[in-house]
């Protein structure tokens, strides 16, 4: 019986989806990582530095907001808008109807800009590196991966 439970546990871990409990966990970890005031600025700067390190060409998408200098006020404000969008989506993970209305709004905003799916994947990779760096430990990568896919799937549908 014990072996069976462990086996079942392993299966569950391997196929982690963004279930109700995983959503609660991501919310808590996001809350700690996002912080407030100037912490958010540092978090955003770290995130975008990783994004552009992984995908230097992505900077071209952000010409309008001075993507060539992540420390410029224009890009810092942009960075906080993106984090704000992510924050809204994560905090709505427990309210599907409103979450879908919000993702439809973000979808519309991104559609105009024709963003390659590879960039969403790059953003996810960066997020999954920077969030645990902020938390130190106690990061559930599977829950984050699955729940980020729910959000980016809606934005990039």
């Amino acid at each position: 019986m014990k072996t069976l439970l462990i086996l079942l546990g392993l299966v569950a871990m391997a196929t982690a989806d963004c279930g109700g409990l995983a959503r609660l966990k991501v919310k808590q970890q996001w809350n700690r990582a996002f912080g407030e005031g100037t912490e958010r600025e540092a978090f955003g700067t770290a995130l975008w530095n990783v994004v552009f390190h992984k995908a230097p060409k992505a900077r071209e998408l952000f010409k309008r907001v001075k993507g060539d200098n992540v420390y410029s006020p224009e890009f810092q404000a942009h960075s906080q808008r993106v984090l704000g969008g992510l924050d809204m989506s994560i905090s709505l993970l427990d309210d599907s109807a409103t979450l879908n209305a919000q993702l439809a709004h973000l979808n519309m905003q991104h559609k105009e800009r024709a963003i390659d799916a590879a960039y969403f994947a790059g953003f996810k990779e960066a997020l999954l590196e920077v969030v645990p760096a902020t938390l130190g430990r106690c990061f559930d990568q599977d829950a984050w991966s699955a729940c980020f896919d729910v959000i980016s799937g809606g934005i990039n549908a």
Partner: protein
Amino acid sequence: RGQSTAAESRCTLPRKMLTLFVVLALAGGALADNCCSAEDRREVVRAWEDIWSAQFTGRRVAVAQAVFANLFASHPEAKALFKRVNVDDSDSAEFKAHCIRVVNGLDLAINLLAQPQNLDAQLDHLSKQHAARDGIKADHFHFIAKSFAEVMPQVTSCFNSDAWTRCFDRIADGIAAGLP
């Protein structure tokens, strides 16, 4: 740190002028300064953090719905501006999502109060977003400022109205700057 912003220069008067101010203030009793000071910002961030709830949206929606209800009660004509987000059903997913975006925009600005240059870049963005929507006037931001000032003390403990108003005006003025 580069050039100072308009808001900073409003807050840091030249020394000579400051002396004059002190004299005037002493003469006039209380000559209120309407700039959002560092102390004000701390008060505002504290009050905001108390109700913000970084994990869930329930409180954000409740506060925004109350603010809009207050706004529409005194300015019913403003309701027409929100047709696109299903304002007639304030419990609809579309309107709730809109409420969350508004509160999020304010949260973003409040958290940028300590970084004036970044705040100005963000307010400029919001100003352009609002200018693109027909019918939005600079005055609307004074109306909604009043609604926030009336709702916030109902939901936050030990609310500092003066600090809130000075900092909210700093934000609202920035958005209203590009509007008719």
